[in-house]
């Protein structure tokens, strides 16, 4: 089959690889009908995620039709149309039973590597490094899905791929970001980053009843989509406006009740801070560039919540712990527990509360995946989300 492979930093190639087979009795094999490039795939593309190997198949946002199931699979059969959550979860361990699906204790065969780097291991993830399992991803014609009775969600035939595909990651991730804010009536929520996850965080903050949602980015078309597509009340371009000052002005000097970081480890910053972080990251003196997170912490109102869903990988510098501690802030974070959110969010889609396809800007063939990564990475051609069709 054809599959999108990582061949080193900034080098993506669609290659011939063997077709996936059933490896465990609980597996299913899907024929992929739609798959997408995630913002977090760009961290792999740019070479910032450790434990990648040449030839790794990428992709953790995908859906398709079941073509084969393992002998222990009961709920799925060939022909079923399903969306697959990006964390791989067994459904039996304590974490799964407690709705902490992205922390499944049994799905990472390379748990010992993750333990060395992170202390304890999170769940395995499709197409996202060997530290997180070494599972082939779904930017391909076919994919093998472990624990097929646990993760994949059957979707109604009357909903198009584009409406349900993002249940695999970014819609639940954005939703969890907003949910972690504990939004109350009258709250103001500020969202750093108007990429796909940021857009869903904005839309979800709306769904969860935030009174004012403020979106922060530097790319005009993304700020426009935040206003028009995700319904942000106010947008701030941080290259033109002092964000901390602006947020104070907009909130009577208090700061937003909750701040969402939907940016992650490749954050940009104007001026000296930006150069400082770039230099340190390129010399591997820090794993992540965190100016967005720094600003989110500094901006948050006393006693407020900072919700982090942007991806971070390692050990970082100039983290404003003093601000966090002295001002009683709460940090909430995590890889999304997608399994927990898929059904309720599907319900929202069916009710017509939201149509997640508003973020799609590019629909291209799987064969052209390399160009898709390039356009998305450089934010060319007003690119916000690339969907690949095998």
């Amino acid at each position, binding site marked *: 089959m054809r*599959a999108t*492979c990582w061949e080193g930093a900034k080098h993506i190639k669609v290659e011939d*690889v*063997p*077709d*996936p*087979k059933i*490896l*465990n*009795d*609980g597996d299913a094999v899907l024929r992929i009908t739609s798959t997408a490039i995630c913002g977090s795939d760009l961290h792999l593309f740019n070479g910032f995620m450790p434990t990648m*190997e*040449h*030839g*790794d*198949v990428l992709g953790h946002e995908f859906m398709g039709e079941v073509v084969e199931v393992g002998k*222990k699979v009961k709920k799925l059969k060939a022909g079923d149309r399903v969306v697959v959550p990006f964390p*791989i979860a*067994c459904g*039996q*361990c*304590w974490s799964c*039973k407690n709705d902490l699906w992205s922390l499944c*204790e*049994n*799905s990472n*065969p*390379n*748990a*010992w590597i993750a333990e060395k780097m992170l202390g304890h291991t999170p769940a*395995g993830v499709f*197409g996202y490094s*060997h530290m997180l*399992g*070494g*599972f*082939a*991803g779904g930017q391909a014609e076919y994919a*093998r899905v*472990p*624990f097929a009775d646990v993760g994949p969600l059957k979707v109604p035939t009357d909903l198009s791929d584009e409406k349900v595909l993002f249940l695999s990651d970014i819609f639940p991730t954005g939703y969890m970001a907003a949910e972690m804010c504990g939004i109350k009536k009258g709250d103001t929520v500020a969202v750093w980053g108007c990429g796909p996850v940021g857009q869903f965080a904005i839309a979800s903050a709306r769904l969860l009843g935030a009174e004012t949602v403020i979106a922060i980015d530097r790319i005009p078309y993304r700020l426009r989509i935040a206003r028009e597509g995700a319904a942000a009340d106010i947008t701030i371009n941080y290259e033109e406006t002092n964000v901390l000052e602006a947020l104070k002005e907009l909130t009577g000097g208090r700061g937003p009740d909750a701040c969402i970081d939907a940016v992650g480890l490749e954050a940009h910053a104007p001026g000296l801070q930006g150069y400082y972080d770039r230099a340190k990251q390129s010399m591997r003196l820090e794993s992540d560039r965190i100016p967005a997170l720094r600003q989110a912490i500094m901006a948050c109102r006393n006693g407020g919540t900072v919700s982090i869903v942007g991806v971070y990988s390692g050990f970082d510098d100039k983290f404003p712990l003093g601000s966090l501690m002295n001002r009683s802030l709460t940090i909430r974070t995590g890889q999304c527990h997608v399994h927990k959110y898929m059904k309720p969010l599907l319900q929202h889609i069916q009710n017509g509360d939201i149509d997640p396809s508003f973020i799609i800007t590019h629909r291209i063939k799987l064969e052209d995946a390399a160009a898709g990564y390039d356009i998305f990475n450089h934010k060319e051609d007003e690119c916000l989300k690339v969907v690949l069709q095998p």
Partner: protein
Amino acid sequence: MGIELHHETATGNGTTSSVGKRTELRTRRGVETTVKDVPRHYSETHGHEKNALVQSLGWFSIGLGLTEFFAPRAVARLSGLDEEDYEGLLRAYGLRELIAGAAILSRPRPTYWMWNRVLGDAIDLATLARARHSANDRGRLATATAAVLAVTALDIACSVDYARHKTPSVDQHTSRDEESYKSPEMVDGTQILSAITTINKPVAEVYAFWKNPQNYPRFMENLDSIKITGNNQAHWKIKAPVGLSVEWDATVINDVPNEVIEWRSLDGGEIHNTGSVRFRSISGDRTEVELTSQIKPKGGPLGAKIAKVFSAVPKTQLSNDLRRFKQLIEVGEIIKSDASAVTGMHPARPPRRSEMEATQ
């Protein structure tokens, strides 16, 4: 003074609850004779006076280093070396001496840096020996060589002395805290490995699964075979590196249902092994399982040294085995990824059928 105070607080005012916890932990691990030893790297930072000779060698390094670094030509002239050729090299040696000297004077136990001095001496001697043919003044070269040899002798004497007195004596002035929990390491050449996990199943189920040796090959990756040879006895064959294997007979010496199983190897095997698996029921009908294994390879202290160097590998193996044990009970099978389904390095892409067959 501060250290003594800390010592008093730790032993004198230990609360009942902390003592209770400590005792429980030790009994559960069953290695109470071994956990008492403070891991060496903790002790190294306390006490143990550096003797005067070590101090003076440190200062000697500083002096020599300064001279070599700032006046390399003078040093070359004095040693009978060519000034032009050796200026840069001597400056580098000077830097080396400065670093070694500073480390010897500032570190509480500069064992490594003392050996570093010996290495430096060897480099100096080699330099002087190479200069034999091109020397400007053979007399000065010979004097310099003799001087370096004398210092080398002192350095070796000091380093050996340090190595010999490596284990610090029990000293009232060290801040030893007998009440705190400490991880077992290696005692008298015996490698103590342990791994612990929590399984989301009731203790009876977990214990029963362990009781059945048929299950062992499913989660012990390096188990070649296990044969039941009698009541509570089994013959173990474990795969070792480079295609070798290790075999021994073991017998169960203690078996308390839902609590503990302990075993020990019988004489005549290739290694001496004792081990235990302990089960503890915790809230939510879960079970903590702790696997401990003490291995003493035959082959005396050298075998033990080698074992220690590689102990990181067996420790990871032990915890990976325990992780698979947990998976078998919770999920019923060991989950494979595209990379882990075949042996060796393999990208995260579906394996070929031939690769799969090679693995089985």
